[in-house]
């Protein structure tokens, strides 16, 4: 018995050893530490100058995002306005009718997309601003990258404040691998003034650092002119007239000028001309169409011929152009017309008119889709002149205002305005702003609100604009729910 027990014991020992040997591979924690395949880990990021460049590149790339520059942008800024209707065919994207009619509510999904799109851009700028300062790299390049990021952060907050009023402000992100303080994960809305103050601070700091021009290899980066010009616009919204004038003067001092041919501003050959101050870069990259993701032109392209046919210019916009205004033909693509580039627009296209500023001739490559080479012009010198004219008129500097205004008018083939009262001139400048910038960068709705006449103008268009409510859009319901009520709704929604 003892013997058998011994045997059992001995064999058990052998057995356990065998199992343990078998288990050796399995009991080692190293065996179970598996690095993610084919993807970098956050802790290894933001160590080198190359990482800083990758991060700022992403900030530029994000400007082409669907939520930033396509449907949501066009719906909020343009389809709501008197310049354009929804367009396309009734069955496609019916929810855009809510913008056309100004009947959207807080649950409309595109609104939430716009909100998210702006904050995603802000997140990318914050990644740069929170991490690049610690990278050991060339001081000039570092400063420039930080200034570029600040410009874009301000750009996104400006979109948010114009659209929603005060919004929550986020200015930093945790470093890779660090957990965020729960207190900063959900913050209430800042006031409109606080948001504007942040925008002014970012743009001012950015303008101090950014260069006025770049070499050809860096064309497309944001410049000092862009920061000053955007800041002028931000001050215009706050009616800080003298600052608008000062900033416009600084921009002018950088050498910008009007080009002779208005229409050339919107062709590929006219990218980065002497009039252009800031553009969103678009490019067909034949092997990597994922980088050619901008759809601003495609969604507005002639339906059935080029694109989806959204943003149909209104008859009211057509009528707004004075007799002989060369800009009409450059702004609106009529069904059945032949373009200077030789394209015949389908006579049976579903919409009578399309946005010609989003038109790309058919000979341009469509390897990644239509219009993937069409830069979006965000700021031109003509707008700077009109901003300055508006500010000058507000401060009673009529002659200077007329001079700036007439530079823009004469380029369009119109007679100069000789004289006008301050109120007349205000209306003239507002009108000039509409026809000069129509369907271009998404200012019309916000201009009407800023000018205090949104209700009057939009109600005349049959839109259900409610004064005291629709000047800002509702905070997306989903965000209010997710915040657990920390975010509050705008009045009237």
């Amino acid at each position, binding site marked *: 018995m003892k013997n058998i027990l011994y045997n059992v014991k001995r*064999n058990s020992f052998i057995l356990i050893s065998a199992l343990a040997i078998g288990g050796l591979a399995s009991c080692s924690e190293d065996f*179970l530490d598996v690095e993610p395949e*084919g993807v970098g880990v*956050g802790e290894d990021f933001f160590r080198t100058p190359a990482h800083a460049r990758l991060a700022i590149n992403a900030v530029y790339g994000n400007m082409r995002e669907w939520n930033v520059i396509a449907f949501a942008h066009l719906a909020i800024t343009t389809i709501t306005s008197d310049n354009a209707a929804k367009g396309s*065919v009734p069955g496609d994207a*019916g929810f855009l009718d809510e913008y056309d009619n100004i009947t959207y509510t807080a649950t409309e999904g595109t609104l939430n997309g716009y909100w998210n799109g702006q904050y995603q851009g802000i997140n990318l700028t914050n990644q740069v601003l929170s991490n690049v300062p610690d990278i050991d790299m060339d001081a000039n390049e570092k400063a420039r990258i930080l200034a570029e990021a600040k410009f874009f952060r301000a750009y996104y907050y400006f979109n948010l404040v114009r659209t929603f009023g005060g919004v929550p402000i986020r200015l930093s992100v945790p470093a890779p691998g660090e957990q965020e303080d729960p207190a900063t994960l959900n913050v209430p809305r800042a006031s409109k003034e606080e948001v504007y103050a942040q925008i002014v601070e970012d743009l001012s700091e950015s303008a101090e650092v950014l260069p006025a021009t770049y*070499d050809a290899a860096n064309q497309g980066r944001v410049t000092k002119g862009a920061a000053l010009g955007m800041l002028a616009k931000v001050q215009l919204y706050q009616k800080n007239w003298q600052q608008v004038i000062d900033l416009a003067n600084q921009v002018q001092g950088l050498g910008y000028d009007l080009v002779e041919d208005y229409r050339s501003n919107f062709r590929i050959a006219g990218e980065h001309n002497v009039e252009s101050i800031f553009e969103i*870069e678009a490019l067909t990259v034949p092997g990597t169409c994922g980088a050619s993701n901008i759809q601003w032109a495609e969604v507005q392209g002639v339906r059935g011929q080029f694109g989806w046919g959204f943003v149909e210019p209104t008859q009211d916009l057509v009528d707004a152009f004075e007799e002989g205004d060369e800009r009409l033909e450059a702004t609106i693509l009529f069904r059945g017309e032949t373009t200077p580039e030789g394209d015949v627009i389908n006579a049976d296209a579903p919409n009578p008119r399309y946005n010609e500023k989003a038109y790309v001739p058919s000979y341009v490559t469509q390897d990644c889709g239509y219009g993937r080479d069409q830069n979006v012009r965000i700021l031109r010198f003509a707008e700077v002149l009109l901003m300055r004219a508006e500010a000058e008129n507000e401060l009673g500097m009529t002659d200077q205002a007329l001079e700036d205004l007439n530079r823009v008018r004469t380029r369009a083939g119109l007679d100069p305005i000789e004289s006008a009262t301050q109120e007349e001139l205000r209306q003239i400048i507002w009108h000039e702003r509409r026809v000069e910038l129509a369907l271009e960068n998404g200012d019309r709705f916000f201009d009407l609100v800023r000018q205090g006449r949104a209700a009057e103008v939009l109600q005349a268009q049959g839109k259900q604009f409610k004064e005291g409510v629709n000047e800002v859009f509702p905070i997306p319901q989903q965000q209010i729910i997710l915040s657990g009520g920390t975010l509050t709704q705008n009045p009237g929604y």
Partner: protein
Amino acid sequence: MNKIFLLFIMCLLTVHGALAQNTISVQGKVTDASTGQPLIGAGVVVQGTSTGTQTDVNGSYTINAPADGTLVVSYLGYTDKQVPVNNQTTVDVQLESDAEALQEVVVTGYGTQEKRDVTGSIASVKSEELVKQASQNPVSSLQGKVAGVTITNSGAPGASPQIRIRGAGSAVGGTDPLYVVDGTFVDDLSFLNPADIESIEILKDASSAAIYGIRAANGVVLVTTKRGRSGEATVNYNGFVGVQRVTNQLEMANAQEYTTLVNEKLLLENPDATLIPTGLPSTDWYDQVLRTAMIHNHQISATGGTDNITYSLSAGYLNQEGIVEGNEYERITARLQTDVKVSEHVKVGYNGIFYNYKSEDVPGDIFYQAYVAPPIIPVFKANGNYGDPVDYPVGNFANPQASLDWFNQKSNGQRLTGNVFGEVNFLNDFTFRTSLGLDYGINEYRNYVSQDSLTTVQRSPVSRLTKQRSKSTLWLWENTVTYDKTFGDHDLTVLLGTSAQEKKRNSLAGSVNDVDYNSEADLYLDLGDLETYNISEDGDRGTVASYFGRVNYDYLDRYLLTATLRYDASSNFPRGERWEYFPSVGLGWRVTEESFMQNQSIFDNLKLRASWGRLGNDQIPRNIYRSQVNRPDRFAAFYGGVPYSGASYTATPAYTLFWEIVEEVDLGAEMGFLNNRLTVEADWYNKQTKDAIFSLTPLGFLGLSGSLQGNYASFRNRGLEFIANWTDDVSDNFSYNIGFNLSRNTNEVTDIESENAALYNGNLPLGGYQISITRVGDPIGSFYGYEVAGIFQTEQEIEGSPQPAAKPGDFRYRDLNGDGVITDLDKTIIGNPNPGFIYGINTGFTFGNFDFKLDIQGVADVDIYNGNRNVRYGNENYDKDFFDNRWNGPGTSNSYPSAKLTGRNLDPSDYYVESGAYVRIRNLQLGYNLPESVVNTLKMRNLRVYVNAQNPVTWFNYNGFSPEVGGPPVSQGIDRNVYPLSATYNFGVNATF
């Protein structure tokens, strides 16, 4: 490989060597001593030799044996019998049924157990069931056969069906069960020929599955392939030829109906609209792209062996055309298995399965294209060009025939799966087994888009070649020790084991423009335009380590206990969170063994069982606990017209992450009545998934793209399963059986961490429409939308309604919150895509040489979202049902809208939710065994011919092609033009030599 082959040759030689003896030929019949029924497949072996055979379908055998030798006859569930030959040439043998055995042995994972001793819920499907239907995928053959197992088939050749065991227990993690083929863990069974399978066991409850720990949360499917048996070599041929046809073809509007609808729509939109011309010839696009397709399948196998070496090998070939023109699938399978008894105590063996497929593919959206293409577009114009939508003022549609002709994609893949094992028996009661499993697979496809202009919308200015190659490897090393001992009334089996596994996957894809294509040999990526190169690569690696143990104990054959414990770790989890215990316990009570039951005559068998277990799921999205660096193409910046990559990191990953845990309670009863001719089995289960990985939408303010994933949710699947079988051998010539199974499952999300949070999913390609919601209190992936209260008949009804912009003929939605406007706040649950009931009826009889089999299968209490009807951009075709029932003037319909299906009429609503219930004749087979005289003349042992119809009839009310839709849990049941299942009619042969 060479060595394996040599070994195989050696065993063949050994078999033949054994035949060289001075013998007489003995024949006879083996029958059941009590019923006189022939026993098919009983083993007859000459004692002390390796000579052996098996009885045929008539219970007959023929064997060469020494005149003074002894035959040993054995059959599962019967007591072995030794019969001296005594110079007789005819030896009939009657076997006594082993009263103790309820004849069935089930595989339980790292062992086998007699069915009567099982304390959990295990379903077993044997090879006879599998071969008596002409399925190409083993999983597909299980449909309707197993209670609690929902199988959703796709009609695409080579496609794997979706399988769910006891409901969906995960939201974003995997819901596939673990497949174990002869001990090797695999992801699917598409590489297996059903004819190679001996049995499939499905471990449904947690206590049965717990031995597989973290892999087992979705249940376990154990596949045992056929192994050789000692005895004379047997060669089998199984083959069938058949045709496949689509059933329940969806009837679409014809040209006349279509123009009527489009013109109605145009007039509703604008009373002055220009109408489209009428009187155009009609194209039925489904008829155009569908065809009657051929299928043929052949498999040849051989098994045999001596006392020391047994082998089994097979080769199979399947050629299946898809029901869509141009779709073809070809599969070759081969299998080789050998077990060698090296000494009395040592056994080694291996098993290898090779699989090769190639296919000619069709565009994934061809059913969508055929659905939407206007019937007024001709296939070809008079000049021979493709019918072009540009000629008709209805919008841009692809010509489906042109799509098929243009599409040029081929796929192929190879896979080798197998294992090698060694087993040592020591100290009588201990067995040590070590096993190394391997699975190696390659999949490739190439796609060529030629530079062409077929129609205005089907054109490409450049050609593009895309190629992809993916590779996966897995190794699994497992070691177990089993101790098996009986002490008086106590039976004890103890199992201890370790397991380690590594799994790798890598996929490399490239594409380039302008490759000249004259022959297949030109399709090389480096022959393209260098400016247009694109490459992408993607990979994954994971490891798992485990320790496990199990105790099976029974006392007096009455009181049964199974207890398991597994200690598991997976590389998917961070250090500190990655090890977890998964315990389980199962209890059984065989009531009929009790003395107080001996005087009753109602129950022949009554067993009650209860089990509890805890399982894990590590099939979760990889690396979600790490902050990752993302470099998508869309982050590229352009400076000076040159692209530069951009990158960001995920700033808020789920830093704490652990297993999805499933806890399940199962209560069951097994009963036998009327001499065990009627058996009944019932189970109740409550399966709770805790800490399920769930995607939460983060606050937009954080600027994260995508969602936050972590252990945020809990679900519950609760249900009942009921199985009844009646088998009766009426006479020598006639026997029949009827089986019925029914399962009920209810699914509910019981908890989501963040208050008010819901996961929206089920995107329709229309801008921003999401159909599915997963939220507390409702089933996973419920349909979410408006309730339709009716149709606006007149302008007066619209005035003052919450939908001032509506037109007559539009949906009137219910203003659920009564705020006077229709907004998202009025949306509610409008349907449940989780099947409530599944059932199957399996019947058969044999009469003389004829056998007949009928399987019926169905699903009830389930909803489908008709995405086909919902996705409209303009003038897509309508189905005939819509034409017949639409609103076209006041009073014409209060449920179907007008043809103006635009704008808010396309909002998700219950109009698009339909019942997905169906009943199907799954399998119908009539077989005939040729008489022995004929078979003997042909030098065969057995020859059976049969005709078979698979899926010949399906009854359902859904307005789509097929009610089998499937999909991941959070977006399931949304029909977006699935590849429908077809009916297959076969003629087949089973021959044994």
